[in-house]
């Protein structure tokens, strides 16, 4: 691999890894806030214990999110300095504003909440976790605006002297139609990840601690609701993407010829890049419905788009890696639906306080599978991002800046390889430690032991 490929791989590794923890932080913050408010309204102790449990998961997850998010902010200067120069006017303020407006809120108030149980008045304390939850959502909105610029550059003009992008309107940048579609889709996906983690843990612990029972239903509801919203918002996002990046949707179906009433294949065997697959299961008209909202609509094919882009931007290939786009798109949808179906099945079989009959074989299998359910939305999320980012190639910012033009000019392959190995090793260790810690935290009894050691002395104020 050359420097460009290595740098791309490194960016992919640290970004996908960071995104294991982001959706969890978003949804766990929301869940903790919801549970605490429920505790305050109902006065039932069990909700307080669950709030504290979710809070512990949140704090270890947030810590990993913070330290890997920091890497993200440096990435553009490290490996992609030409992109940073070209795009700095747009991207720099966006990152700076995200940090100052949202990230400070999250970090400061999460600490106030976690350590402030007996230091803050009850209502103020509840407000801190609500602020954290709002902060995570705000953070997501601003960062997704930066990403949406790369899919659909808006609110900029090219400086005639420097040839660089210049930000015209921050409001317009935030209200990019891709962002308005991608933001709810991302939040819904996040809700699935957090919900399925809670469901998985609760099922795993249900026998040894009855306190986990409400968590299973909360997690299942979050997964099902999140799943339904992911599908709805995904449908809308698909239509917006068809409009602004028709090549991406054509690649998702490996549709080479422009077709009216285009079908959607659920599965294909054989050559999907170029030739005809020799076996595929196709649903008629579905691609036209997904892309344009009408069964008879015309969907542009890869060959036509390639010819159109070559005429517009000059010679070269504008076709992304078709098999990657084709399969990530399908797997994202399929795996996400599987998670949602499993959670829905759990809700149905345990409706009105029923319990799963463990003498039956399928129930036992189902209960054994459920603790693994968090893996599904996590995988679907990663596949979704891989689809979004690889099917954008060869562009960094669609139509204005190519990947090959963005890399840091002086970078050597030895440096990138060394850093890639270092990131992989350290991130790998952190992932293992995080998993073990989540397992350890989930094993603790929910109700705290009667006497907890006083952490701080109350007699001597510092200031």
């Amino acid at each position, binding site marked *: 691999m050359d420097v460009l490929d290595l740098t791309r791989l490194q960016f992919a590794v640290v970004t996908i890894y960071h995104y294991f923890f982001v959706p969890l932080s978003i949804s766990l913050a929301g869940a903790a806030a919801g549970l605490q408010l429920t505790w305050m309204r109902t006065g039932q102790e069990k909700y307080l214990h669950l709030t504290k449990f979710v809070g512990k998961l949140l704090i270890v997850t947030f810590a990993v999110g913070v330290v890997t998010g920091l890497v993200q902010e440096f990435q553009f200067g490290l490996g992609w300095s030409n992109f940073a120069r070209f795009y700095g006017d747009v991207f720099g303020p966006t990152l700076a504003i995200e940090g100052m407006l949202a990230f400070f809120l999250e970090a400061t108030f999460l600490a106030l909440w976690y350590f402030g149980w007996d230091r803050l008045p009850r209502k103020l304390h509840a407000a801190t976790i609500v602020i954290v939850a709002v902060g995570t959502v705000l953070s997501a909105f601003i960062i997704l605006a930066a990403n949406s610029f790369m899919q659909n550059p808006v609110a900029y003009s090219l400086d005639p002297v420097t040839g660089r992008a210049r930000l015209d309107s921050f409001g317009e940048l935030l209200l990019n139609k891709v962002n308005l579609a991608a933001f709810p889709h991302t939040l819904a996906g996040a809700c699935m990840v957090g919900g399925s983690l809670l469901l998985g843990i609760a099922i795993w612990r249900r026998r040894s601690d009855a306190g986990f029972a409400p968590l299973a239903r909360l997690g299942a509801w979050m997964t099902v609701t999140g799943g339904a919203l992911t599908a709805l918002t995904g449908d809308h996002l698909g239509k917006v993407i068809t409009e602004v990046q028709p090549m991406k949707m054509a690649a998702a179906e490996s549709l080479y010829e422009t077709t009216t009433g285009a079908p959607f294949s659920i599965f294909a065997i054989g050559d999907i890049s170029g030739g005809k697959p020799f076996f595929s299961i196709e649903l008629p008209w579905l691609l036209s419905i997904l892309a344009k909202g009408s069964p008879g609509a015309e969907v542009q094919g890869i060959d036509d788009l390639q010819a159109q882009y070559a005429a517009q931007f000059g010679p070269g290939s504008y076709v992304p890696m078709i098999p990657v786009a084709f399969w990530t798109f399908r797997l994202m949808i399929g795996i996400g639906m599987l998670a949602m179906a499993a959670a829905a099945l759990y809700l149905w079989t345990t409706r009105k306080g029923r319990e799963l009959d463990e003498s039956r074989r399928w129930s036992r299998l189902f209960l054994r599978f459920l603790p693994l359910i968090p893996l599904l939305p996590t995988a679907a999320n990663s596949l979704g991002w891989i689809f979004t980012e690889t099917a954008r190639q060869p562009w960094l910012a669609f139509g204005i800046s190519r990947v090959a033009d963005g890399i*840091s000019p002086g970078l050597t392959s*030895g440096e990138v390889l060394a850093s890639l190995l270092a990131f992989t090793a*350290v991130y790998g260790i952190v992932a293992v430690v995080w998993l073990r810690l989540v397992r350890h935290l989930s094993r603790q009894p929910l109700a705290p032991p009667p006497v907890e050691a006083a952490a701080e002395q109350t007699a001597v104020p510092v200031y």
Partner: protein
Amino acid sequence: MIAVWFSLVILCWVLFFVLEGFDFGVGLLGPIAGRDDHERGAIVRTVGPFWDGNEVWLVAAIGVTFAAFPDWYAALLSGLYLPMVGLLLLLAVRGVALEFRGKGDGERWRRRCDAALTAASAGIVLLWGAVLGVLTHGLALGQDGQVTGTGLGRSTAPLLTWPALVGAAAALFAALLIGAMFLTLRTTGPVHLRAQRLGIVLATGGAVGLGATGFATGSRLVLVAAILCVGIAMLARTGQELLAFAGTALGVAGTVVAVFTAHGDVVLRSTLDPAWSLTMTGAAATDSALRLLSIVGVVVLPGVLVYQAFSYWVFRRRVASERVPS
């Protein structure tokens, strides 16, 4: 306008180095000021509620640098590629060790977290010090604003120069001193006593060392720092802990400002040809981006300072390090 933004960039970096400086110092001092698991727990708890908010100042600093001076951000990070990657990884280990320490089970787990915390803090302090040292000296920027070279040495060679080594040593001293002062301020019992003694020794040693260097080189800045150290030692000895800490913070802040303004309006000096240096105006973003940032800086930043101050006020009580007899 550009000068105003340059000041804001420096302010963010100053806040990062002061606030995270004592976090790093506390991490470093774990095995020195804490004799057992219980005492080391107390030491970690002194920064527990703060380190995360403090670290966001790095996010703010690098974000504002990117926003206001994209060329500076691009040249600095790609030119110091490997040291920056090292810093990020060490920061990751440090943050995770701090946050995970109290969540796991058993003394062995906590010992491992403590070891990771101390080692990572030491690495971070030495590397940041080296990077600041390199900033005073400059990088081998070519005409196109790029650092040229081959292999791993391209971005690591600047660390093996005298300015970098002096910077690393100075940072280690400063982190230990500010960490000791912060611990003195935030603890009671045996840890408090040890931190106070350490602070006095460090400040006195610093006063002697800096004084000698100041007289030898004739640098007024170093002499001022030496006088500040004398003051800190005296304040720490008389138990005026808040003032001693404030004095140390002032020293760190002054040093960071001095590093960033060492070459006037040149933000990154080229060691190859002064004409290839990166200037404030040359690296700045467009007016529209700067205007947007001004609004945010005026509206949002004061709010951040207020609620961060509030969090320091909420957790103002000292952490007890003596064992409660059971």
